[in-house]
């Protein structure tokens, strides 16, 4: 619905980061956007809203990454955050079984509320702590496949797998947006004409010719 295709060739996507408190959502996004980890010299004031500009196969993409509060007491506020988002990154800690359980809950909720409009990524973070792993790779990957999500392994500390994660996600979101555009029917008339109560008063033929005669005269 929040089709990013409005800018012709520029896509704007909204991606929400969901996951329990200490799974490393913030580290992940700081690593991606600022390439920093636990840095004492982080210049950004905040790590809750970050943007990234990408160029994928000649198309410009503006990515807006929304961090969410992971505490349990804020769980009920989820729908306010993920409304209108094109993608969701669901992060868990591979050393913490509980955090994977939370991800499953989020997936259920997102699919129920947004259907298949949203691209889901399930991310097992902290693979540098593989010796303490409590969530098995097979379990996680088979679960992701069963709900139509992609699974990734990342480490914000070692900067592993993060670029791939977001690049993949962007490509998938672009595909979804393009499919949506095709569905809507091609042409500029798409969104406007389908809505009711169009209010444009048009006593001169068209905007473009009017502009043309202005500049020539």
């Amino acid at each position, binding site marked *: 619905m929040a089709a990013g295709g409005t800018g012709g060739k520029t896509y704007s996507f909204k991606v929400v980061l969901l996951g329990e408190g200490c799974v490393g959502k913030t580290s992940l996004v700081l690593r991606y956007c600022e390439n920093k980890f636990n840095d004492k010299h982080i210049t950004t004031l905040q*790590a809750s809203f970050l943007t990234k500009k990408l160029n994928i196969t000649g198309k410009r993409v503006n990515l807006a990454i929304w961090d969410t509060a992971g505490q349990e007491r804020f769980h009920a506020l989820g729908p306010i*955050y993920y409304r209108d988002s094109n993608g969701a990154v669901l992060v868990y800690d591979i050393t913490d079984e509980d955090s994977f359980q939370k991800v499953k809950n989020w997936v259920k909720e997102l699919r129920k509320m947004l259907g298949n409009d949203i691209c889901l990524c399930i991310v097992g973070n902290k693979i540098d702590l593989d010796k303490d792993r409590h969530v098995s790779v097979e379990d996680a990957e088979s679960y992701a496949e069963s709900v139509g999500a992609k699974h990734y392994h990342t480490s914000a500390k070692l900067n592993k797998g993060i670029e791939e994660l977001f690049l993949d996600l962007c490509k998938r979101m672009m595909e979804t947006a393009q499919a949506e555009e095709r569905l809507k029917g091609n042409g500029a008339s798409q969104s406007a004409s389908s809505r009711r109560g169009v209010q444009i008063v*048009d006593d001169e033929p068209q905007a473009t010719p009017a502009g043309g005669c202005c500049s020539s005269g």
Partner: protein
Amino acid sequence: MMSQRRGIHLDQSELLCKKGCGFYGNTGWQGLCSKCWREENQREKQKQIQEDWALAERLQKEEEEAYASRNQKAQTQPTITPFGKFEERKTKEKSSKVNTVTKFFTPSSKTPPKKDSPFDAHSSQSPSSSTSRHSSVDSDHATREFIDFLKPLKSGREIFKQCRAFTESMVYKRDMAADELSECVQDFYQNLSDRLLTQFKGSSDHVEGVMDEVEKYMMTRLYKEVFCPETTDDEKKDLAIQKRIRALHWVTIEMLCVPVEEEIAEVSDSVVKAITDVIEMDSKRVPKEKLSCITRCSKHIFNAIKISKKEAASADDFLPTLIYIVLKANPPRLQSNIQYITRFSNPSRLMTGEDGYYFTNLCCAVAFIEKLDGQSLNLSSEEFELYMSGQASPNWPQSSGASSGSPGSAAVTQVHKGLDLLTGLGERQERVMEKARQLESDLIDWTDEVEQKVQSVLESFPPETQTPAAPTASGTTLSAASAIDSDNVENEHLPPPLQPQVFAG
């Protein structure tokens, strides 16, 4: 004087037209006959029209001056030859634009004057009597700015026309449900930006710039009609949340796990600024300006968190702090403002922009405050009920031990200690004052006493016995005594004075 006679006798001359044309006049026409009245009336109308024209002309002149100065600026800069032609074309374009804009202010001859002169329309169009002078000044100002902004655009005139027509049509839809109004406005935004996109050939930044101005112009003029409209229960919700926040006055920083240390001066400064900004939101008219208040508030919060935690703030830190700020600020008409922004802001801004993120967080904060219960503050439901009903407060030392260990209660005990100390000091001062007063009265008594004694001594020893300077040595005493005695005639009959004798041992 006239009215007394009116019923009985009326002089014929009084009935005649005041212009003296010989026809009868009419009080409804200010004592003129129909013909003279029409002439007079026409003249007045003409005057009104001329005034309108003068105003429009003055405005136009101002604009042209602005153009001239801008042109001068442009001309002083590039003097390289290849640009010469381009410059010329640009100037030509601009002057043609002046013409276009002029048309906005020229009353068209077909339509009846006054009412439809577009300039007048800005202020008098809205039929609502509540439109105060101030707001119409505001919207005139917005109109002027909008026109200034649109002038350099190719289709500026077109855009202005559509926006004005739409704004005027909106005024008549006041009875519509707020959601429908919102849909109308959103449709208009959508249509206009789609058109602009084809026109600017996909330069979305440019379109956004224009849409910002469109929103500013339209919402400044429609604010009165569409902010907290009577058809909604926004006002009721405002009061509800206000009451709710007031009832939650006891919530502490620790209960919300806010990572902010207010003891640091810079942090508390940021907190105060954040509170000010979120309150200021209500005073703005344009959704975009309201949003930037929220953004500023958020930036201050991030600053406070960064100083306290010495790392970039994450959403885990930000949301609780924002909730705390909202609880402290209790911003006026919070729900109305949120609804207004949701309904009438440019949707792209709310969906992906930074402003949108902070706005979403504010919505979350409000939703959290509305649904807040003991569990979400790590309190038992009994405690929560007690605090809500005001029967207990976490700040009272006698309340259950839940808060005894927290640094907040330490601060409270410190305050109590300070208060005790103050009362102790007060008592001591009181005592000092009392003693001082007593001392004063003692002194007065003492002087009185001394005086009395002196008096009594004076009475018992009459002034005749007054002696000259007191003798210091025994030798002089002798001679002095003899000198006194020599003066005293009566004393001659007395026996010689006793000589001092030295006793041995």
